[in-house]
């Protein structure tokens, strides 16, 4: 890549202006994701309400209690993420440890979701059985896919935080990461509540 463009990866001369633009872009991105989840939930509600009690087959297992645990894990990860962000803003070296904790909790969440899926599957609930199963797997899967997609940027952020790279002058990456993470946390609570209410 010898003949690369000059490094014009931003039109902003002022780092502060660049950060503001990034924040704005991130809010728009979260708005896009919110539309994705809201329309999915609307789709779920339409078929759920259309079918009434018939939506839930007589022998269908309820959403596993393990999801309650994963919800807790995710909420705690939001707390560690926020603490990491606060440390990052002031250049506090504890940002590294807090990001590692957040990453570990994210992985724990994904594992818990996987185990919950396996439990349901072992109780003979396959995705192609009925819409009750289909919507459960698809909705939780959609969220898990977004957590999974958040892992690469989170890995980079953790790696940089472990070298205490974030400080008062530059905490863009860790801020964007935190915004995304809190969003996924909030969306999960809504999604989970919808699924629990929908399976009654």
């Amino acid at each position, binding site marked *: *890549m*010898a*003949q*690369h*463009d*000059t490094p*014009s*990866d*931003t*039109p*902003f001369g002022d780092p502060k*202006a660049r950060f*503001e*633009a*990034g924040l*704005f*872009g991130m809010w*728009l*991105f979260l*708005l*896009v*994701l919110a*539309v*994705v989840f809201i*329309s*999915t939930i609307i*789709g*779920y509600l*339409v*078929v759920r309400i*259309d*079918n009434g009690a*018939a*939506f839930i087959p007589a022998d269908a297992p309820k959403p596993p209690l393990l999801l309650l645990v994963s919800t807790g894990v995710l909420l705690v990860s939001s707390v560690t993420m926020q603490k990491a962000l606060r440390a990052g803003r002031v250049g506090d070296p504890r940002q590294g440890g807090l990001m590692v904790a957040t990453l570990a909790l994210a992985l724990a969440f994904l594992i818990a979701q996987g185990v919950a899926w396996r439990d349901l599957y072992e109780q003979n609930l396959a*995705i*192609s*059985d*009925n*819409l009750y199963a*289909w*919507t459960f797997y*698809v909705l939780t899967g*959609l969220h898990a896919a977004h957590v999974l997609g958040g892992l690469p940027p989170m890995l980079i952020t953790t790696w940089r935080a472990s070298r205490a790279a974030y400080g008062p002058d530059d905490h863009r990456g860790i801020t964007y990461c935190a915004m995304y993470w809190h969003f996924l946390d909030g969306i999960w609570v809504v999604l989970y509540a919808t699924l629990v209410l929908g399976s009654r």
Partner: protein
Amino acid sequence: MTTLDSRPVVTEVKDNYLTFTRGLLSWIFTLDHKRIGVMYLFAVLGSFFVGGVMALLVRTKLLFPGKVEWMTADEYNKAFTLHGAIMVFLVIIPSIPAALGNFVLPIMLGAKDVAFPRMNLFSFYLWVVGAACAVYSLMAGGFDTGWTFYTPYSTQYGAGGTIPVLVGVFILGFSSIFTGVNFIVTIHKLRPPGMTWFRMPLFLWALYATALIQILATPVLGITVALLVIERAFNIGIFDPSMGGDPVLFQHFFWFYSHPAVYIMILPGMGIISELIAVHSHRHIFGYRFIAFSSVAIAIFSFLVWGHHMFTSGQSPLMNVLFSAITFSVAIPSAVKVFNWLATLYKGSIAFNTPMLYALSFMFLFTIGGLTGIPLAVLSTDIHLHDTYFVVAHFHYVMMGSALIAMIGGLHHWWPKMFGVMYNEFWGKIACGLVFVGFNMTFFTQFMLGSQGMPRRYYMYQPEFQIYHHISTGGSYIMALGFLITAIYLIHSLFAGKKAPANPWGGASLEWQCTSPPPHDNFATTPRVGDCYDFSAVRWDEKQQGYVIDTEAHLAAASSGKGH
């Protein structure tokens, strides 16, 4: 004519963005919005060629009412589906924002680039991957669902390439969303000092309104096609009525995106027309704020009318009445634009060059396209016209006769800026005339076909319709000839075209104040901004064979409010 002796506004720059760095890699990894715009442009025009060939195949088949040996009914279904899907997702949606918008938007703002150059390049490669999925789907058996992918046909039947093309549409949606996010942030954060919202060129207002739709509607399409893919893969889903799902829900989801998508296609075109009309009639745009707000109004209405695609789907009569009424109201902001353009032309000194001819074509064709939307919004007449050639003619007048014609007009308008060469004006006018005549021959006849009851998408038809199909197909060949000539003289100009001045048309917006082609970083310093529709300080300069703008007079006029 006196030559202006004030210092030349345009400083001669040896390097431009095309020659700044060389070699294939410098293009593949470029973060320059101008190069990304040019790559989009050629990708989109290439897709336009493929989609056009498909259209010609369909039209040629329709010369004959019965079976033909060289194209089976299945192949015919695939050809028109491919035509629709390519033209919508690969051509018209990205054509103006991603190709022309990418090139022009930052320069119009006097900025060095869009807010997120990396994301811009990423969005281009997403387009490439999406297009590759569409190509792959052809090898996997093609797709024949129509571009609307209605269930249960798309989930339970449909040719083998349905899943790959849906994945392609999903990825193209991402590309579109990223472009939208980029443009919104750029317009908010990178306007130069002095450029208030109401000093922006109207093209930017149009791109802004478009971007709003792109980020709010496209995610719905994304999740819809994702659910469709899962449903097709597992043979069950929320759109499957046999398991308690709801196929009409698919139609709601699909049109919640795809109706706004119609405005993703037309709004940037309207923005281009606002520029062309003002610049080529050398007259201040009439009713600036009305045009600006009508773009936003159209964007808002676009989210409230999707149900008019579903009048015969069995949704409740109350819903039908509401959607019908709101649909009528779209006519108001659209007409506001047309009348303001007309008022701009009035007493203007109109230059009948190729961009202007395309702009006038647009006004004529868009008016027909818009007005024929009214009988389709009326519930009683829509029952008769639904799924006939009347609908086909209507949306071609809007999507092709308006959106695409505006794109071609804009391409001619900014061609000298993009490549630093002038195209052949004589052949430009001839080609524009051929396209205009061919277009009306092709699609006006389809209004008659449709009102007499010829359904759309049919392989065979009653012999009494044959004369209309003959005229229509003949028109499509004339149009193809026009586009062929356009391709030839544009490519020819790249190698042998006359060198373009910085300002060949006499525009006053910022892109005409840097060299043609622009330097790598557009402007050495952030330019000062006047009223981009005030042409009083623009003079023809014999020596440069182009227009020059007296910056001081231009700025003074803007601050004193002259020229309005």
